[in-house]
């Protein structure tokens, strides 16, 4: 048979015209996501919650907030929801903004609605910052382990770090001279190493100081193992109980005790991505390490991490509520839903709304985060997508 020439251009055009309408990845994701009605409800409430939290922080902060969550009106304590204030007993400044106690008042006569508004923001901040820390640490650790994992830490690295940290300690203890000498020696050594490396293109491995001690991957994965050895809630509790209670400490502690999953995931993802052709191609083209990581690998690895972060926020809000129950939550003056709830539980017979309003609010928001995250995860899972 002879080689027949087909009018290729025509066919291509014809085929393209016929094939599925072009959709962006996001479009497709949205289309898939939209099918899951629960997830859509989750998203809607998620957005509402974000709006509430943002408006909450605007409306409840400042010198004269629209809703004052700290306004104490003792004579108006423990009023049920939808009660009108006794206007005669109040000074004009004390009258609630809405003219009604939408969610009732607490044991000090503070407007629960204002407190919930403020709490929304604080709870959200706790969730976001804690998860943000955990994602950052996790991605960083996992990325390094996955990408540079095969590289070794040599004895001279360890020595340099030891000298530097000894210098820092000396400086801290007031032995300026010794400390400065140590620091200087450390820096000079590091600089020389880096210089030599850039000159020769690669580190030459000679002598005992350049002996490979342990690989980066091992170091990081052992760190993950060590962290996983602590029962997480117990660890959080220990640290929160021992360090002074503050909102920031709680966020940091929750964040620093939950990065291990992310790190493992990112590492695995990087390990498999590193072997893939497009990375090899990029490397062959002489693209720098960091460009490869951030331009090529990170986008692939980070989307699923973000999904689990959504669920992580929900967990962080719950953790904070649990800590509040045990008396270690975010301390006043910040109201969080968790501490409104645990403060209210003593009044469960006399003022049930103090327990139920924050309880149900936490329930709904956490539920929505979870449903939203799950929906997103489903939509992004290529395996399920093919069959769906």
């Amino acid at each position, binding site marked *: 048979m002879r080689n027949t020439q087909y009018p290729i251009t025509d066919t291509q055009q014809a085929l393209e015209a016929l094939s599925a309408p072009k959709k962006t990845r996001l479009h497709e994701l949205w289309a898939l996501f939209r099918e899951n009605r629960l997830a859509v409800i989750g998203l809607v409430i998620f957005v509402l919650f974000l709006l509430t939290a943002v408006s909450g922080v605007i409306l409840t902060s400042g010198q004269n907030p629209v809703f004052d969550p*700290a*306004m*104490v009106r*003792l*004579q108006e*304590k*423990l009023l049920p929801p939808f009660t009108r204030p006794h206007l005669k007993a109040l000074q004009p400044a004390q009258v609630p903004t809405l003219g009604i106690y939408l969610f009732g008042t607490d*044991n*000090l*006569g503070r407007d629960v609605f204002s407190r919930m508004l403020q709490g929304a923001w604080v709870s959200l901040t706790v969730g976001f910052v804690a998860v943000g820390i955990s994602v950052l640490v996790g991605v960083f650790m996992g990325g390094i382990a996955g990408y540079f994992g095969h590289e070794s830490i040599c004895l001279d690295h360890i020595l340099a770090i030891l000298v530097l940290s000894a210098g820092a300690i000396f400086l801290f203890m007031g032995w300026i001279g010794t400390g400065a000498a140590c620091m200087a020696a450390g820096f000079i050594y590091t600089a020389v190493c880096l210089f030599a490396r850039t000159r020769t293109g690669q580190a030459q491995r000679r002598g005992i100081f350049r002996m490979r001690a342990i690989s980066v991957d091992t170091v990081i994965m052992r760190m993950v193992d060590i962290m996983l050895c602590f029962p997480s809630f117990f660890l959080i509790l220990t640290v929160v*109980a021992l360090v*002074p*209670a503050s909102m920031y400490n709680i966020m940091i502690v929750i964040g620093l005790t939950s990065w291990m999953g992310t790190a493992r995931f990112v590492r695995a993802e990087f390990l498999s991505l590193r072997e893939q052709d497009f990375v090899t191609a990029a490397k062959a083209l002489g693209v720098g390490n960091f460009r490869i990581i951030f331009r090529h690998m990170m986008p692939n690895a980070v989307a699923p991490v973000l999904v689990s972060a959504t669920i992580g926020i929900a967990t962080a809000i719950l953790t904070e509520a649990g800590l509040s129950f045990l*008396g270690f939550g975010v*301390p*006043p*003056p910040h109201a969080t839903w968790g501490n409104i709830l645990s*403060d209210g*539980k*003593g*009044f*469960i*017979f*006399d003022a049930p709304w103090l327990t139920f309003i924050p309880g149900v609010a936490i329930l709904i928001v956490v539920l929505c985060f979870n449903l939203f995250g799950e929906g997103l995860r489903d939509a992004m899972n290529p395996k399920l997508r093919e069959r769906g």
Partner: protein
Amino acid sequence: MVTKRFLILMPMLVMVFLFQSYLWVPTYEEQTTGNPDRLYQYITPSLGDATSLNPIISSNSTSSQIESLVFEGLLDRDEELRFRGRVARSWDIFEEAYFYVNSGAPVPAAGFVDGPGIVQFIETAKKKADSLPPEVRETLRRIQKIVLIPPEERSVVKALKSPSGNQPVRKIRVHIQAPARIKMTLAEINQDLFTNLSRLLGEDYFTSFDPVPFVRADPSVDRQLLARWAGELLPVTEHNPVIVFHLRPDVRFHDGRILTAEDVRFTYQAVMDPANLSPRVSDYEPVKTVEVVDPLTLRIVYKRLYSPALATWGMGILPKHLLNREALRKEARMLGRDPDTFTMRQSRFDRHPVGCGPFQFDRWESDQFILLKRFNGYWEGPPNYHRYVMRIIPDLLTQEMEFYSGTLDSYQVQPHQVKRLEKDPRFQCFSGTSFGYTYIGYNLRRAPFDDVRVRRALGMAINVDHIISYVLYHQGERITGPFAVQTDYYDHRIPPLPYDPEGAVELLNQAGWKRNEDGWMEKDGKRLEFTLITNSGNDIRKAILAIAQDAWKQIGIDVRTDVLEWSVFIQERVNKLDFDALVLGWVMGIEPDLYQIWHSSQTHPHQLNFVGFQNLKADELIIKIRQEYDHAKQVAYCHELHRLIAQEQPCTFLYVGKWTAVLDRRIVIKDLEQNGLMLYKKITPTKTGDYTFHFNKWIKLAEMPQFSEE
């Protein structure tokens, strides 16, 4: 498919098994009606577990609650808060006083007199006392006996630490050639003895006594140090109060041994033994000697006047035969520990105490319950209840739930619940004033709190009655000073600070603080601002924090608030005196000893006068109260001190809380009348609000009792 069936059936069976147990569980009613034994048990909750049941070691409230039932002290307080003998049947208090003959000081109308001369002189003065001023006459009247102690020689070894601390300790022998000394026995303790005697013996008879010539150090030390040692070794005058206890002959420990004076002395020694690390050391530090006169008589001599002394003997008495050296060594050998380092702290006695109280120890399951059973050999007759159970339930709401379901007989009510529970026909309520007060303390070392006008203004700005009615739901009482409201020491005539925000602004203006255009108080361009702190975990304090902040904002003071975790609060802020103002509470004893909290010598870091109250007059009164054994005089001093503190307002005294306890209404007092008839009475609290005073006579009935009107 087997796997599937297993996975579904297994949990179903487990659930069914779990749920069917409901049919077996007794309801509130069934617990008492079908179960007569339940009526002989008293079950009470506690938020925390006990630490140790050894009364000389433990220091928390749960432990002492149990200890008060298992152990018995020499005495306690009755309904009127007077001392009442328990293990001790009765006691005598008198004084032995000493002074060194100061042959270098002239006695008015007698010139320089030696020892026998002084004795003679006082004896004579006593005989013709009529011409003397009344106080001196009164003093002399109390002196029963005067004895002359001849000069004596002795020597002691003093250890001298080098100042830098890194050289070995130097041992220095100090030789003393004590001059003659006069010993007087007084029928009643008199802290003014020497003041009054000096009117007889000359103003500077005592003050001019120089002990230095009588001591010699070998090897010699510098003069200053020697003078200090001499002052310690040869005190010019000395009060030695003496308490003689007469014990009951029929008091037995739970293991059957008779309690004797030896046991009491052993208890004292155990407290003082450094190895035991007893927190009660400071109570007994003033004790000089404890002598066993005979098995039922005990003589305790104190180094100095110390009026709270009697109350300290309310501590539970330990059985010597179980805890002495030999017993401990035996136990250590049994446990395979080193007998030389084994102390009472490691002994099993800690968790299996044996005392002589109305209940004897039975079982203790950590964090679950402590079980006591009644002691049939109790000297006052055994209690009605057969068992006493303390359950440890760390959560108040669950305690409440358990109370409703009938497995607790009492419940410590929170203020906001009082109203609701008082109405419930199943329960009876008791309330009383507690011994703790809450206050806002100011750091008097810092401006602006060094100005009494500012402190007054701060106090006046706060509506305490408001706090009491709204935060405490009327479960509190306003106070004006640091004494227990229930006692005579508290002066009820002192008016509280009025709630007067305008007056407060006035006062601040006087102190130089003026409102600026933003409405904040300002002086020399500086805004009046500070931080008010308290510890976490106490809702009421948190509420006060919020209220104070709000109230002070009204008069133009910018207050930030901070709630800190307890240990941080204490160790970082209070102990290091790093605070502006704080909300805190003190638990008072009945004894009016305010030395540690208000004396100016206690204002250093880690001491309890952290507000930094310093007032010479107050110091003097505090010492006087400490040394006064006469109740009426003590009361008078206390009232004076109270007035002084109220004037100075070193802190804003807020309130003493009231507690309310609910009991099952079926619990009553069962008593035998003299004619042998059984009598059931409603439980009534004593004057001080103590409803458990007659606890040994309580019993639970199966049915709700009906009392006839009396």
